[in-house]
């Protein structure tokens, strides 16, 4: 048997180009349906797990999927903004604990998530390095975001402007990194968490600037009365919150009108959740409440339906590839007829010659299986993250 395997191996190694094509073709026959199955199954598990861990989401009426994807994975388009007053509606009668979310801005592609400390408790996120954010202008980063941005506690990150020509007041804000979170194998690993107020500062609802009441600011004051001071464009607006300028930061307008992208509602119990959902049933209601697990299930049903078609297509392609591979083997036998005749003439046993041909096929199939298994393992390790990114983008 060793001699047969050796000869088969020599043949395959000599014809390495043909062998590589055959191995690649047969690998795809195995890998495509199985890999797809693994990919979809794992992605479904991960997406569903995150959704199941989030009981209810409140947002402005619109696409439930967009709301869920933005609030859970921080990846989708920003849903239409809602007001902070929604917090009080969610919390009324003590039906649920509200956790506000403001996920609109980014730091070099990593989402800035404005929220409260309740979020960290809710998601069981712990600080691995440094400390929890404590004052305005501080942030804590998921471990992937910290690694990719190359920051550690004590360094700083700057929010990216929404557009290059954004003149509406969304200025970049430099934020001090207070801590880095432990890995959670979730989208939180890629997030830059800030206090809700810090998010509002980036939004332009709050700001800090040079004191206009002092004599050194006289040249910057256009007009002044008892309540208001109007400054000109020379007034210095702070783009970083530091201990020395923190006191100058203030907010304008009614806080209840400040923007949120969503509110996570954690109902007291199942019944409270049902009652809360009932509040949002009205057709005239401008807000919506969704169960993220239902929304993700709908998405996954669509994905699974597509998967069935894709698998069916793979099976057809697989049969076709298998038939082609068989043809290649048959043609190869024809081309090798003289070689086979030579072996028979010099006294090669029919069994060994047949075993040689069969071993070549077996080795090609074996290599394909090993490669297919390796690719499936790679898919299991990295595919779910890739498909998640694909689904939410």
């Amino acid at each position, binding site marked *: 048997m060793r001699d047969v395997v050796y000869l088969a191996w020599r043949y395959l190694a000599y014809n390495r180009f043909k062998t590589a094509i055959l191995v690649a073709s047969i690998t795809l026959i195995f890998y495509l349906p199985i890999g797809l199955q693994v990919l979809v199954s794992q992605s479904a598990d991960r997406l569903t797990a995150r959704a199941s861990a989030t009981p209810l989401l409140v947002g402005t009426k619109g696409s439930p999927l967009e709301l869920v994807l933005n609030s859970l994975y921080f990846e989708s388009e920003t849903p239409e903004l809602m007001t902070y007053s929604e917090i009080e509606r969610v919390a009324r009668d003590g039906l649920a604990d509200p956790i506000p979310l403001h996920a609109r801005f980014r730091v070099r592609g990593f989402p800035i998530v404005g929220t409260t400390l309740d979020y960290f408790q809710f998601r069981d996120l712990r600080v691995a390095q440094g400390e929890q954010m404590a004052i305005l202008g501080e942030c804590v980063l998921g471990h992937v975001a910290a690694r990719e941005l190359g920051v550690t506690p004590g360094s700083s990150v700057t929010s990216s402007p929404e557009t290059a020509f954004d003149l509406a007041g969304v200025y970049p804000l430099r934020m001090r990194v207070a801590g880095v979170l432990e890995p959670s194998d979730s989208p939180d690993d890629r997030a830059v968490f800030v206090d809700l107020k810090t998010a509002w500062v980036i939004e332009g609802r709050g700001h800090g600037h040079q004191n206009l009441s002092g004599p050194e600011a006289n040249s910057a004051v256009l007009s002044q009365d008892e309540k208001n001071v109007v400054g000109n464009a020379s007034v210095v607006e702070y783009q970083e919150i530091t201990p020395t300028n923190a006191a100058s930061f203030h907010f304008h307008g009614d806080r209840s009108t400040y923007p949120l992208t969503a509110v996570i509602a954690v109902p007291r119990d199942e019944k409270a959740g049902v009652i809360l959902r009932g509040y949002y049933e009205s057709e005239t209601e401008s807000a919506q409440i969704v169960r993220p697990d239902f929304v993700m299930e709908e998405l996954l049903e669509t994905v699974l339906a597509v998967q069935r078609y894709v698998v069916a297509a793979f099976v057809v392609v697989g049969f076709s590839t298998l038939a082609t591979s068989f043809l290649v083997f048959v043609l190869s036998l024809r081309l090798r007829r003289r070689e086979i005749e*030579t072996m028979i003439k010099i006294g090669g046993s029919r069994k060994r010659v047949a075993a040689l041909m069969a071993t070549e096929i077996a080795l090609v199939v074996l290599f394909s299986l090993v490669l297919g298994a390796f690719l499936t393992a790679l898919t299991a390790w990295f595919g779910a993250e890739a498909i998640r990114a694909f689904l939410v983008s």
Partner: protein
Amino acid sequence: MIRIEALEFSYDSREFRLAVDELTIESGERVAVIGASGSGKTTLLHLIAGIVLPERGRITTNGIDVSALSEPARRDFRIVNAGLVFQEFELLEYLNVLDNILLPYRINSSLRLNRDVRKRAVELARSVGIGDRLSRCARQLSQGEKQRAAVCRALLPCPSLLMADEPTGNLDPANKARVLDILLEYAEASGATLLTVTHDHELVSKFPRVIDCKEFHFSSSASGSGGSELEREGP
């Protein structure tokens, strides 16, 4: 000793027929088989080697009735007792020279490949001047080197019967002489019987005995003959 009695053979698809009433080749004889194209020289070798079977008659080699053996037994007989050399060398292009020489040991379990055999293969290759080509692929060899590698493959199992089918047909004069000398030296040294089919009358002179196949060829209604034989003194 090879003994053929009342042999008749034909191919289904051709009108060709071969008939040999009686032919005896003693052990250790060196015989050139000549004849025109299609006269049955190669067929005669194939019959003696048991590659094809006669319709009638008997072929006995070293006391074994080859024509009565089953196909697997005839293959075993060939791999152990008969070394075959072909005009087109018939080396396997995906094997290097050493693996080509060792091929008989890998395709039939009647021969056991071990360290001694490998050592012998290397020595054999050195003795015919291709010792430095062992790791090369067959296609990287010259024609003469290819045929010497093919001869080594035939000689490695130390066959008692060596059959070469126009072994010098594709070689230049220098290589012709060299390959033929290797075959003759082996036959001389081992006492093996050597049958060489050739068209080359220059080479025929090196064989003590020549068998002309033209008399073996006959029509279906005619009777067979013992062939036309020319006995010679040694070269």
